């Protein structure tokens, strides 16, 4: 009798497994990011909308199973983020996690996703460790990373004649790393570093630091800081006539929404690296227009990246005929990404999506035709140069 019951249940299990390859009869996508704080404008509800747009594009269904999108606020705290993701996976049956800005939170989620075998589509987080020491077979780093920001801006600006640099650096790990990486790429391209000044995090007045940068006579002032610090440094640099005096500012982590909040009068001349801008071609314009109608703001590269990642994931689920993480991850790696965000982009063994990056310069008010017409393209950095070589990352998946 006992063996009969066991046999029966095994048979039932097998039958159910063969019939429904989608767990729990729903594809549940969890978008986790900052909904109210520092990074809410670059990710936030815009990323949720981007995921929704990707789901709507395939009719809200894959393999006849509905797609459901849930979201949560991690408040930029790794412990909060970890708890949400554990609950999502253990009790809410979330199949895939997307976005997650703030590297510390993303690194924690990467660990959990690897343990629990869930695919993690990283768009908002910057740390290149996510495809380096902390790489995972289930983790995909979609949009940008610190290496791309540093290398792209450093290298491309030196080539454009900006061969002497001075850094304004936020005095913590992120700022130091950005300064170091950018400095290395400046030197490798034949530029010189004339100096750096380390300012405390969340400084409101930068005038003193800016005067030191001005006195250095460097052609480029690299802003190795983020958020409010970057905005205040740009605002005050305009006030002290630094850009008007012939020096250029290079923002190492600036998003199009930051430019929007600064206004062109203040931000003009600033050089930034991004992997997406709404006004690149007809496809990006068409998609961004739809996004703008619903979000009342143009998409950032993080939000566009969430769209692209969710879209590629859903296509892989469809092709694999299952939502099993191992099979879907294999499918995602073996197919190229083709959408409005990326053209023919491939995913490397360490999870890094290889795509072009863009060196952009903020337009002057006279050049801009209206709201959100903010950038002109200075250079396209090809995918092969934009990201850290595979062998240098120290990812255990790479032999």
């Amino acid at each position, binding site marked *: 009798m006992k063996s009969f019951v066991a046999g029966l249940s095994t048979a039932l299990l097998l039958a159910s497994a063969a019939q429904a390859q989608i767990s729990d009869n729903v594809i549940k996508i969890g978008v986790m990011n900052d909904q109210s704080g520092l990074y809410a404008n670059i990710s936030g509800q815009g990323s949720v909308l981007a995921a929704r747009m990707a789901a709507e594009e395939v009719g809200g269904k894959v393999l006849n199973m509905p797609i459901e999108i849930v979201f949560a606020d991690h408040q930029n705290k790794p412990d909060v983020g970890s708890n949400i993701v554990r609950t999502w996976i253990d009790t809410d049956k979330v199949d895939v996690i997307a976005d997650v800005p703030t590297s510390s939170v993303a690194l924690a989620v990467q660990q959990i996703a690897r343990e629990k075998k869930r695919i993690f589509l990283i768009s908002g987080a910057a740390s290149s460790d996510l495809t380096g020491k902390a790489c995972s077979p289930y983790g995909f780093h979609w949009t940008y990373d610190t290496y791309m920001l540093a290398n792209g801006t450093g290298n491309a600006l030196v080539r454009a004649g900006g061969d002497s640099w001075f850094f304004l650096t936020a005095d913590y790990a992120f700022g130091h790393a950005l300064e170091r990486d950018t400095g290395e790429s400046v030197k490798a391209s034949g530029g010189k570093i004339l100096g750096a000044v380390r300012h*405390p995090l969340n*400084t*409101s007045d930068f*005038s003193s630091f800016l005067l030191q940068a001005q006195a250095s006579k460097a052609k480029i002032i690299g802003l190795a800081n983020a958020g409010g610090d970057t905005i205040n440094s740009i605002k005050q640099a305009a006030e002290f*006539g630094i850009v008007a005096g012939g020096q250029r500012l290079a923002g190492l982590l600036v998003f199009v*929404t930051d430019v929007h*909040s600064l206004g062109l009068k203040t931000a003009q001349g600033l050089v930034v690296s991004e992997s997406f801008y709404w006004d690149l071609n007809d496809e990006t314009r068409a998609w961004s227009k739809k996004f703008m109608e619903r979000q009342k703001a143009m998409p950032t590269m993080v939000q566009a990246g969430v769209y692209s990642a969710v879209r590629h994931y859903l296509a892989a689920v469809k092709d694999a005929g299952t939502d099993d993480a191992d099979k879907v991850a294999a499918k995602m790696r073996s197919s190229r990404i083709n959408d409005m965000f990326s053209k023919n982009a491939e995913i490397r063994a360490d999870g890094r999506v290889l795509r072009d990056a863009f060196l952009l310069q903020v337009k002057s008010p006279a050049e801009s035709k209206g709201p959100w017409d903010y950038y002109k393209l200075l250079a396209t950095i090809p995918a092969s140069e934009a990201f850290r070589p595979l062998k240098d990352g120290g990812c255990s998946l790479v032999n």
Partner: protein
Amino acid sequence: MFELLGVPPQALFGQLLLGLINGAFYAMLSLGLAVIFGMLNVINFAHGAQYMMGAFTAWMLLNFLGVNYWAALILAPLLVGLFGILLERLFLRHLYHLDHLYGLLLTFGLALIIEGVFRKFYGSSGQPYSIPEELTGGHNLGFMFLPNYRAWVVAFSLVVCLAVWYLIERTKLGSYLRAATENPTLVQAFGINVPRMVMLTYGFGVGLAALAGVMAAPIYQVSPLMGANLIIVVFAVVVIGGMGSILGSIVTGFGLGVVEGFTKVFYPEASNTVIFVIMAIVLVLRPAGLFGRAQ
């Protein structure tokens, strides 16, 4: 050309001037705190949020009603001051007879709520606010480039600080205020409406915070958290100057701005910390602050 500790003197003059400009903001903000603490015995932790509201009100006046900077300089403090009066009527007045701690907790909670509401509606990137046309550009002083707007900030805040000091320490109204702090029952017995005076004083202190906010809008990021970053430093300034001392808050405000300015040249990493180091030393040597009177 001689050098002082490896820094050319031009750079030092420049930093001295910049320090005074930053000190102007510290002075304006700590002045409002000192007025409120001196008269109401309330530690107003919502001061940073009210400073932020001043900047945002200026932004709203400009963007929704087309009101320029100069008018905002008067209107925004009035509006935010009225809001302060509302807070005083609704919440604060119930706490006067309790320990300082209750007022601190209440205003701290209010600050979190106000900042949260602004963050909900305006996000965290902040809003653009330009320097008024009349004050753009600057002058080359030989040792540094001085933007006109900064010169205006330092001059205007000096005038405001001195006027407030004069009002409280030298006029009849000021003497009523000071008397009401010492002995409200007696002052009331002379036919002066003390609760109304206290209410208006709180509104005035809040208005000063808003005024500093309007002045900061063109040069700092107008964002919901702009006050949260500043308020702790300003509290340190108040503690160093002596809680409730009007003159103390003005002098230490400017003085610490200069100290911080020099730290930014010699050891920039410590520029956020130096004020707290000074605070610790002052607390050990003179617990009532440099200008405070031990009670």
